[in-house]
C-alpha cells in the first residue's frame, strides 16, 4: 500500500502494555461480553503485537460495541456489513491483524450473505461471533439462532422459525476454520482464540455468550458445573471423542454417530471416533452434533476447533495478480493509460 507504508511507522510495542482504551465499558452488569473482551485483551497482551497494527471491525449490536474498548484501530460500522468492510480493508492492507466482532443477528440475520461470502473467499480475519440467541441491543427479539418456540418480545406465542446451525452453515459455505467456545470457559476460549489467530484465512469462532437481561441461562447446561460434563464434548485433534468425565464416548455407526458407554480407567475401545481437524467429511458430521439438550440421550454439544484447512486467501491471490500484472506489463504508466492504444495528432 504505497502511502500507508510511507506514513506508517510501526514498531514492536513494549510487552504487557494494556490494550484497553480509555472508554468506559457499557454492557449490562453480568453480560457475557465482559469475559470475551477480557480473554481477547489477554491474548493480545501475550502476543504483544503493536497496537497500531491491529484492527477490530464490528457491525451493530451490544457485542459490536467491542472495538471501542480496546486501544487499537477500530470501526463500529453498520448492521451486518462488517464482513464486506473487512474484505475491502484486507485487500489493501494484508499487513494488518484484523478481527471482526459480530452478533448472531448481525452475522446470521442481516449479515448472513456477507458472512458466507467472506468464508468462501477466505479473507484472513478472526471472526468472533457472539451468539446469545437473542437480539440484545433492540431489547429481546428472537434471532436466527433462537430455538423454535422461543417466547420473545416479537414472538409472544413462540418462534416458528427453525434456527440455523451456525457451524453447519459456515461449513456449507466452505469455511477454512471452524470452532466453538463459550464466555464461561475462559481458558478454552483463549486457546481457541490463539489457534484462530494463527490460522491464515477466515477463522470463524462461534462463542456462546450469555445475555443475562434478555436470554439469561440460554447456555446453562453447557456452563454449569453440574451439567457441563454431560452436555459438552471438547474435541482435540487426534484424540478420541470422550466426555462425561470419561464415562461416555462417541463412535460412528456407518455415517451415524452413536454414544457408547466407557469405564474410566479402562482402555478405550478402538472404534471410537478420533477427531481429525483436517477431515472435511468428519467435520461435516461433527457440526451436525446439535441436539436439543432437553431430549434425553441427546448427543453432547462439541466445543473446540472442528476443522482447519488451508486455502489461499482472497487478498493473497488478488495481490499476486497485481504483482503479476506489474511484472508483465510493467508498473502502470499514467501517460500511457491516458493516451490509450490508438491516438492521432492535429498539428
Amino acid at each position: 500500500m504505497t502511502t500507508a507504508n510511507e506514513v506508517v511507522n510501526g514498531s514492536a510495542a513494549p510487552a504487557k502494555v494494556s490494550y484497553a482504551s480509555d472508554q468506559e465499558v457499557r454492557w449490562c452488569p453480568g453480560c457475557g461480553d465482559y469475559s470475551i473482551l477480557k480473554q481477547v485483551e489477554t491474548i493480545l497482551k501475550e502476543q504483544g503485537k503493536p497496537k497500531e497494527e491491529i484492527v477490530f471491525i464490528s457491525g451493530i449490536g451490544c457485542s459490536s460495541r467491542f472495538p471501542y474498548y480496546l486501544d487499537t484501530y477500530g470501526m463500529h460500522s453498520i448492521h451486518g456489513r462488517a464482513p464486506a468492510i473487512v474484505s475491502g480493508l484486507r485487500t489493501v492492507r494484508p499487513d494488518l491483524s484484523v478481527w471482526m466482532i459480530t452478533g448472531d443477528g448481525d452475522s446470521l440475520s442481516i449479515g448472513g450473505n456477507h458472512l458466507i461470502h467472506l468464508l468462501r473467499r477466505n479473507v484472513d480475519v478472526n471472526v468472533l461471533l457472539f451468539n446469545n440467541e437473542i437480539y440484545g441491543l433492540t431489547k429481546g427479539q428472537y434471532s436466527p439462532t433462537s430455538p423454535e418456540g422461543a417466547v420473545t418480545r416479537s414472538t409472544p406465542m413462540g418462534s416458528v422459525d427453525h434456527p440455523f446451525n451456525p457451524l453447519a452453515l459456515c461449513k456449507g459455505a466452505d469455511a477454512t476454520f471452524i470452532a466453538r467456545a463459550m464466555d464461561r470457559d475462559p481458558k478454552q476460549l483463549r486457546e481457541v482464540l490463539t489457534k484462530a489467530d494463527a490460522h491464515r484465512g477466515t477463522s470463524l469462532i462461534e462463542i456462546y455468550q450469555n445475555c443475562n437481561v434478555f436470554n439469561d441461562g440460554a447456555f446453562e447446561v453447557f456452563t454449569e458445573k453440574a451439567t457441563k460434563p454431560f452436555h459438552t464434548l471438547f474435541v482435540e485433534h487426534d484424540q478420541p471423542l470422550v466426555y462425561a468425565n470419561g464415562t461416555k464416548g462417541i463412535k460412528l455407526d456407518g455415517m451415524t454417530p452413536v454414544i457408547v458407554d466407557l469405564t474410566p480407567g479402562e482402555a478405550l475401545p478402538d472404534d471410537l471416533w478420533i477427531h481429525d481437524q483436517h477431515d472435511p467429511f468428519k467435520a461435516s458430521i461433527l457440526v451436525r452434533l446439535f441436539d436439543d439438550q432437553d431430549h434425553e440421550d441427546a448427543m453432547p454439544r462439541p466445543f473446540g476447533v472442528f476443522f482447519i484447512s488451508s486455502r489461499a486467501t482472497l487478498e493473497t491471490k488478488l495481490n499476486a495478480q497485481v504483482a503479476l500484472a506489474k511484472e508483465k506489463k510493467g508498473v502502470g504508466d499514467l501517460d500511457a493509460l491516458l493516451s490509450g492504444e490508438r491516438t492521432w495528432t492535429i498539428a
Partner: protein
Amino acid sequence: METPTRTKTVEERRNVVILFAGDSGDGIQLTGSQFTDTNALFGNDVSTFPNFPAEIRAPQGTMAGVSGYQLHFGSVELFTPGDQCDVLVVMNSAALRSNLATLKPGGTIIANSDGFDAKNLRLAGYIDNQDPLTDGSLANYTVHAIDITKMTRNALADTTLGMKEKDRSKNMFVLGFINWMYSRSLANSEKFLEGKFSRKPELLDANKKALLAGYNYGDTSETFTTRFEVKPAPMPKGTYRSITGNQGIAIGLIAAAQKAGLDLFYGSYPITPASDILHELSKNKNFGVKTFQAEDEIAAICSAIGASYGGALGATASSGPGIALKGEAMGLAFMLEIPLVIVNVQRGGPSTGLPTKTEQADLWQAIHGRNGEAPIPVLAASSPTDCFEMAYEAARIAIEHMTPVILLSDGYIANGAESWRFPEAKDLKPIKAPFAKPRAHGDMEKFLPYLRDENGVRPWAVPGMKGLQHRIGGIEKEDGTGNISYDPLNHEKMVRLRAEKVRRVVEDVPPLDISNGVDRGDLLILGWGSTYGAIRTAVNEMCAEGNCVGHLHLRYLFPFRKELGEILSHYKRVLIPEMNSGQLRQLIRAEFLIDAQGLNKIQGMPFTSAEIKAGAMQMLKDVK
C-alpha cells in the same frame, strides 16, 4: 495493404450521421465503433450513440432484437451523435422499420436484401407480405438493396468456415463498403482485426476477405457512382484519442489515485450500464488497481469503505436500483468522514425500468436519498470526455475533503464515444491526502480524530500509524474526540460542522461560467449532465439566428456555487431541460425562488438539439 481505386466522383460533406442497425447478433456495435475509430484517426471530430435492447439476443428478426449504433463524424466540432441520420444501414426488416423515423428526408438506405425475406418481414410486422424495398414506400429516400449475406458467403467460398461463421463476417462486408463510400483506407480496420484474431488465423483471413469484398463491391459495382469525403476537423492542436464515458470514469479514478499516491480499490456489483467501469478497471491491475466484484451493492460500497479506511482510495459504481441499496452505507461513510467515490451511471427507472436506456431521474436520490442530515457533494459529467474530468474531480474532492462524493453519469454518455484531447499526467491537478501527522516519539497527548482544519476536514489516520489508534463509527460523535456522544447540543453542532465542511467544498471548485451564448439576455438554458451536447448545439444555432440565449451547464451540482443566483438573475427566463420530471428545477426554485421552467423528456432517449431549440424558441416567444 493498398486499396484498389477506380475514379468515381467524390463529393465533400461537412458532417455525416450514419446509423448502423441490425439484430443483436449482427455485430452492429463492432462495425460502428470500428468506423468511428477510423474516422477519428483520420482527424474528424466524432460523437456516437450505441442503442441496444435489454435482452442479450432478443429473437432474431424481431423489433425487440434490434441493436443500433449511431455515428456522427465531421470536419467541424461536434457535440452530439446527431438528431437525424443521413445514412441508415439496416441488416434486416425490423432494423429498417424501427429506425426509419430517424432518417432525414432524402437520406440514403443501405439494406441487406437477405434480411427482407417473407419471414423477416413478418417478424418486423410488415403485414401481408408488403415489402418496403419494393413497394415504393421508400420513394423519398435513396435505397441501395444489397444481398450482403450472399456476397459475404461468396467472398468466403474458398474458406473452410461453416455457413454460420461465414455469416458472422457480414458486418465486415458492411464496414468495408462504408469505408469505401467515405473514402477511408482499410488499414485501421485491418490492424484491428489482426489484433483481435491474432490467435485465430482462419477467422482473421475470413474477416479481412469480407472487409475487402465490401470495399471492392463499392469500388466496382456500377450502382455507386459517387463517394463522399469528410475532411479533418480544425480541432485544437494536440494528440487525440476516442473515449467512452465509462472509460473516462475508469481512467479518471486511476489517474486521481496515482496523483494522490494511493492505491485504487474498486468494489462493485455488475449492473447495466455501469459494468464497463468494472471491466475497464480490472484490466489495469498494473496500476495497483484492486477490483472486487462483491456479492451485492451493499457489500460493494462497504468494501470500498473498508479500503478507504485502510488508506486506499475506495470507489464504487452502480445504476439507480443498485445505488438505492447503498444509501445506508453512504450515511456511514459520511459519518466516518473518509474518502469515497460513488458513481451512478443512470438508466431508465423507476425500479428495473429500462436497463439499457438513458435517464437523469436519480438526481433527487443522489442529493436527498439518505436518512438524517447527510449532505454529500454531487457532481455530474456532461459528456464522455467530461466523465474523465469529473471522475478525477470527484476523487480529488473525496480525498482532500475527506468525504464521500457522488458522481452522476448516464447510459447515453457512458456508452457514447467522442474524441478526446487527453491531458498529460504532469498537468493534472495535484492531490494531497490529509494524512495525520505521524506521532513524535514519546508524544503521549491524546490523538483527536475529529479535530478539523480550516476547511473543516479531519485528519486521515490510517491503521498502522503508531500512536494514532482510534475508534470511529456511525453513532453520533463528540466533537474532536470522536467518542460516542448523545449530548443534544453536540449533535446539533456536529450536524452543522459536517454540513459546513461539505459547503466549503464548492469554494475549491472552478467558478461558474456560461458554456456558450450570451452572458445576459432573454433566456438562460440551465443544464446538467448528458444534455450538454444537445443544449450547446441548440444554443449555438439560436445565437447564430440572432437570439439572446445563454447556456450554463452545472457540473458541480451540489452544493451550488454562490455565484449561481447572480448568473440566473442576468436572464429574463430560465429553462431547465432534463430527462426527468424536473428534479434540478425543483432545487433551483427552492434555493433562488425563481420561476424556472422545465423542458422534460422521459423516453429513455437523449434530447435532440432540435427538441431543445423548439422548447427554447417557444419560451422566447413568451418573453416577447
